[in-house]
């Protein structure tokens, strides 16, 4: 159920991104005389301070916004595979060194770093933003992939590959990679949501290319024109809500994958009912056992 809602929602957003520019009722940049109007028949999402149509901006901006998310996530996931697998597989200085590098990147706050980097590249297009975000946000994925590699590397089939003299690139990317796919896809989904949030944050601060419409640049203009101080909610609610929904849908897909993969999650509920009934019956018959005994030692 959760997975269905998640996938359904994502498909709808993708459709909006693909057909959005073709069905946008107005030119998103064209100003008009109907200024700061709330939602109406002519302008379903209302208008901006310059009389631009918010719905058109939203529809045109959807594609680039999602594209940056996927672009950055692709870069980040590729890097996290290239660094995560070897850092888990190799012991000694190579593995330790790569682990150290990813731990350093893990604790360095990404957004301030990006702000400084992008600050030197004024007016960067959303495509450039995507690459830079990907280059700085791979560490979380690398950590998860490393942990999974550690637990896989002593399995039989990997040992067998090593014993038959497979070269290490073949072991890493042919024997280990398939077993890592669930972790990699989860970290990719997480990365998409994170990248879209980060991109939006950068553009909100005015660090994007303001001549391109994305949900982030839409939000920049609402800040710049103080839409929130004049109560123009129709202007800033749609882009932010859509971004939050992307995160929700991706999380629902992840929950679903988790529940399917984790037998314990499905089983525990039935067992709990049983033990609880037994415990209740026991209490009724003989009273609590060792009342107030402490936590497990």
């Amino acid at each position, binding site marked *: 159920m959760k997975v269905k809602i998640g996938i359904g929602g994502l498909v709808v957003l993708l459709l909006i991104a693909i057909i959005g520019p073709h069905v946008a009722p107005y030119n998103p940049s064209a100003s008009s005389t109907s200024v700061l109007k709330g939602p109406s028949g002519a302008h379903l999402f209302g208008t901006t301070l310059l009389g631009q149509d918010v719905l058109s901006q939203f529809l045109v901006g959807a594609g680039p916004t999602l594209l940056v998310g996927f672009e950055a996530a692709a870069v980040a996931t590729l890097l996290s595979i290239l660094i995560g697998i070897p850092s888990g597989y190799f012991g000694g200085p190579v593995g330790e060194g790569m*682990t*150290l590098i990813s731990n*350093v990147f893990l*604790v*360095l*706050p*990404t*957004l*301030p*770093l990006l*702000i*400084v*980097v992008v*600050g*030197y*590249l*004024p007016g960067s297009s959303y495509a450039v933003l995507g690459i830079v975000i990907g280059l700085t946000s791979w560490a979380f994925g690398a950590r998860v992939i490393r942990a999974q590699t550690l637990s896989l590397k002593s399995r039989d089939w990997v040992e067998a590959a090593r014993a038959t003299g497979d070269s290490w690139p073949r072991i890493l990317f042919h024997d280990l990679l398939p077993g890592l796919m669930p972790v990699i896809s989860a970290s990719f989904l997480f990365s998409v*949501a994170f990248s879209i*949030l*980060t991109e*939006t*944050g950068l553009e*909100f*601060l*005015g660090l994007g290319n303001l001549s391109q419409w994305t949900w982030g640049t839409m*939000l920049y203009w609402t*800040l710049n024109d103080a*839409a*929130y*101080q*004049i*109560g123009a909610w129709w202007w*800033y*609610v749609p882009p*932010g809500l859509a*971004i*939050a*929904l*992307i*995160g929700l849908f991706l*999380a*629902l897909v992840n*929950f679903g994958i*988790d529940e399917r993969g984790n037998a*314990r*999650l499905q089983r*525990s509920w039935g*067992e*709990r009912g049983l*033990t609880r009934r*037994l*415990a209740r019956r026991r*209490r009724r018959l003989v009273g*609590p*056992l060792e009342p*107030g*005994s*402490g*936590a*497990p030692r």
Partner: protein
Amino acid sequence: MRAVARKIAFYLVTTWAAITVNFAIPRLMPGNAVDGFLGRVGGRLSGRALQALTVTLGTGTHKSLVSQYLSYLNAIAHFRFGTSLTYFPEDVSTVIRQSLPWTLVLVGVSTIIAFLLGTLLGVLAGWRHGRKLDEFLTPFGAFISSMPYFWFGLIVVTVFAIDLGWFPSYGGYAATQTIAFNTAFLSTAFTHAVLPATTIIVTAMGAWLVGMRNMMVNTIGEDYITIARAKGLSEGSVMWRYAARNALLPNVAGFALSLGFVVAGAILTEVVFSYPGIGEVLYQAIANRDYPLMQAVFLIITLAVLAANLIADIAYVWLDPRARQAGRA
């Protein structure tokens, strides 16, 4: 103790990496941005300020990279970040000294509240997983943690400051007040902090809620929970003293990981509320392409995040006897 020493060593390395990245960025970037900056400020700066700028950004100098790096380290060690263009003729270090306390209090307090609240709700959702509370709280947590902080801030301003008029919509204290340690000032500082703090607490809470919920669900399947139940202990006792207590450890580890994200969100929240903290300073620095200020703010935020991470890591070692034994990063 060895575990703590290892942590400290790791954070020393990371601090060095952050400082070096800060040195490298302006030198790796296409030169025209920095040259443009020099063109705008050059005439207004005295010789010493110009020299400080050279040390930070590495322009107009023919010294070797090594000697540039050494004089840069020397400047950082003495908190000499050059002159700010935005707050001309203030020193960057003065600007930071004035804004940092606002951020430390606002972000520090609201992060801790968010962590406690998120963990608490996560315990409840995980305990009743699959039930109504969980079916509502967990997707809700995923949703609020996916909201851009600043966007939720915009909504909070519109509703609580503009429509309802309960709290001021921007600033850190009433314009009629001067900064002083008295009740009048502190009370306006408090009312001004309510909305930004609410924004940070609500948005930051979601990730910890979901994380704690998942850990609870895993813990509930453990044998010691079944045994605790079979002993006939009350549900509350099993939930808090057996399940939550053990599920908390990974959530403390997760606290460190999501801290950078929370701080990033808090920076953007300050911008929405024109809060006089370091995030607003950063915003002004970006708007004016004030590179020395940007670099210094980056460094300060990074160092603060690293310090908070170190504290969380030490707390983890203190809470978990196993971490003390293994001593792994």
